């Protein structure tokens, strides 16, 4: 086998936002990540799926400089998270699973704080705080304390606080957990918008529908290892996946469904045309509308 020329290797590497080889991390005797390999290309959106304890959050924490790996090589945007922390942090954004905001500060005070700590100053800082409030739909509530916000409002603020410095790569750790469908939809649209703008995303969630809708590629993890990886189509074609599914008939877009059903019936195959069954969230949004519901948590005494 011919060795890969250095120029080709460098060119490939430069197109990788994340490159991980043999990543390992153990907490005490419990292995959290065991020999994980992972590549994410620039501008790509990777969905990281797995049950609780699969190692998703640990992997994100290592990639985002919060945790040191025990073994393996990690390059994020060409930098080593363990060695180049400050340089890397100015180029990445992390939306944590927890609502990591100061509840005793106002919405705009939270954004100003994190914006300033991300290196923004003066007019640029004010401009980005304004953008954050608009994106989160909280312009009217800019002077409200976060403690007065509903769960959905906090989640939206939690998201934009990680995006103020316009990072090239964003890690999102269950960003829509525990919010109402309107806020989830709003959050999701914001995430889609930043991805369309060319930002690389690594997205973990338990909501499979979100990954289907957003991610170019999916990695399924369990017990610290990668079980499968690829596009949704690639995963659907996996032998162990196909073995567990029933069979179906796929028609081309625009096919005359009534005619196809009639032909099938002529050949003794029972068939009828029905409208596509919407999922529950679509039903909920159709009935309650897509507008944000920003009621605060304050309970009248």
């Amino acid at each position, binding site marked *: 086998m011919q060795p890969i020329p250095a120029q080709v290797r460098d060119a490939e590497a430069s197109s990788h936002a994340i490159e991980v080889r043999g990543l390992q991390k153990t907490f005490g005797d419990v292995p959290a990540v065991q020999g994980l390999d992972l590549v994410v290309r620039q501008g790509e959106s990777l969905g990281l799926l797995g049950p609780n304890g699969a190692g998703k959050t640990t992997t994100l924490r290592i990639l*985002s*400089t*919060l*945790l*040191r790996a025990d073994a393996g090589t990690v390059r994020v945007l060409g930098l080593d998270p363990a060695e180049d*922390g*400050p*340089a890397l*942090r*100015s180029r*990445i954004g*992390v939306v*944590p*699973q*927890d*609502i*990591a*905001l*100061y509840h005793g500060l106002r919405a705009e005070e939270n954004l100003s704080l*994190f914006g*300033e*700590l*991300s*290196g923004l100053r003066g007019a640029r800082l004010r401009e980005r705080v304004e953008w954050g409030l608009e994106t989160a739909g909280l312009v009217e509530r800019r002077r409200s304390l976060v403690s007065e916000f509903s769960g959905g409002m906090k989640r939206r603020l939690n998201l934009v*606080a990680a995006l103020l410095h316009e990072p090239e790569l964003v890690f999102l750790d269950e960003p829509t957990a525990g919010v109402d469908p309107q806020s989830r939809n709003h959050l999701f649209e914001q995430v889609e918008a930043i991805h369309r703008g060319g930002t690389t995303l690594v997205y973990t969630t338990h909501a499979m529908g979100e990954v289907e809708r957003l991610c170019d590629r999916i990695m399924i993890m369990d017990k610290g290892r990668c079980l499968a990886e690829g596009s949704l189509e690639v995963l659907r074609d996996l032998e162990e996946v196909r073995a567990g599914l029933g069979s179906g008939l796929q028609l081309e877009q625009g096919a005359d469904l009534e005619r196809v059903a009639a032909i099938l019936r002529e050949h003794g195959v029972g068939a009828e045309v029905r409208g596509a069954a919407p999922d529950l969230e679509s039903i909920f949004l159709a009935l309650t509308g897509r507008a944000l519901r920003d009621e605060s948590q304050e309970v009248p005494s």
Partner: protein
Amino acid sequence: MIQTALTLLRKDLRLFARDRTALFFLLVLPVGLGAIMGTAMGGGMMGGGSKARKIAIAVEDLDRTPRSQELVEAVRSIEELRVEVTAGVRRLVADGDRAGGLVIPAGYGDALSSGSAPPDLVLYRDPAKQIASQVMVFQLSPVLFQQTAKGLGSRMMGRVTELMDLPEASRGAITKELIGSYLRVEDIMDGVEAAAAEDAAEAGTEAGTEAGTQAERDDDAPPVTSATEPDATGEVGIMEALPGLMGLQIEDLSPPRADGLPRSAGASHAFSAMAVMMLLFNLVAFAGTLLEERAEGTLDRLRLTPQAGRAVLLGKLLVTMLLAIVQLVVLFTFGALAFRVPVMEHLPALAAASFAWAFAASALGLLFATACRTRKQMEGLSTLVILVMSAVGGAWFPREILPEWFQTAGLVTPVAWAMDAFHGILWYGKGVLSTPDLGGVMVPLVVLGSGGAVMLAVAFALYQRRFESA
């Protein structure tokens, strides 16, 4: 209804039993503090009684004769006193380093040998250590009497007739009668000695409980007083007169205030103690927000910004110090206005002490925050440590009434040094630097500063290990 209440009771008991902090506050803290208070107040574990505390007294022998040496050895033999023979005892007492200082004047031995009245011994006392002073006089009285009685007969009798305000004409006869009875006085003094020993032991046992009310008594202490001065009615009680009869002149050293107002040891101690203890509680609680931020995830978010890094801990240090300074300013301003605590007397020294204590207390708070895993764990541990440090460091009651090993143990706590600094400034009127007449508070300030630096270094190391690499 009862069944439901019992079900809820079982639920609460289960939850309580699994809450280590609650168990700590319910069971461990009161027992631990009870043990400390009991030991401090003179009780011993298992009914054994603790070793009697010793009162530190300095003796200066200006006479240097066999008779004065004899007196020094007699004073040394008093078990309840820790005697140090040294020069400059007045300064030691004025500095607050000793509860009392006895000076044997030159000519003392010659006068005794020749049978004439010896010059007065001088006992310097610190009015801020009134209980120790009382114990000291009780212990010294019989010894001094025994040592000086033989040469004091005529002076004693003259003083007695003077005090009794007898007519001049009849004094001679009465003096003769009294001298005739003199030998019986020695027998009486044996009884006095025994009673004094009993009183001293009692005074020592009650010292702690009296400490709280000492402030009121100290308030009445004039700047420099003689213990044999008549009271408001012009009469002198026998206990007040006794030292004079023995040729002992007592001088209470209380530095005069520039504004002429009387100095209050009680108020000085109270505001020093509040400055020390309450600051610790507040700062440790505030430093605990570090653990809260970790639990809430905001600390990680700060760490994820390119500019935070270790500035997180530095920021906590600065804000805790700022809060400490604000608290001290409010406290001392109130003390100055409401209790005439002399905060303006040595303002630079007070500012330096406030800064040093704010630094040391903030560093201690950060040490707690970085050493503990959870806020609840920190609350339990810090409460115990702060209360113990306050007890042995002299914030609850003056250190000199504590057993000797307690006093020594107190020196490893920042509380003792902070109390020395604040009380030294507010009561003894010390500045930062020593003067020919008075010591300064430089040593406590240096100890607080260096101790704070060490605690801060450990806190930074723990932060790096437990917060940044976790």
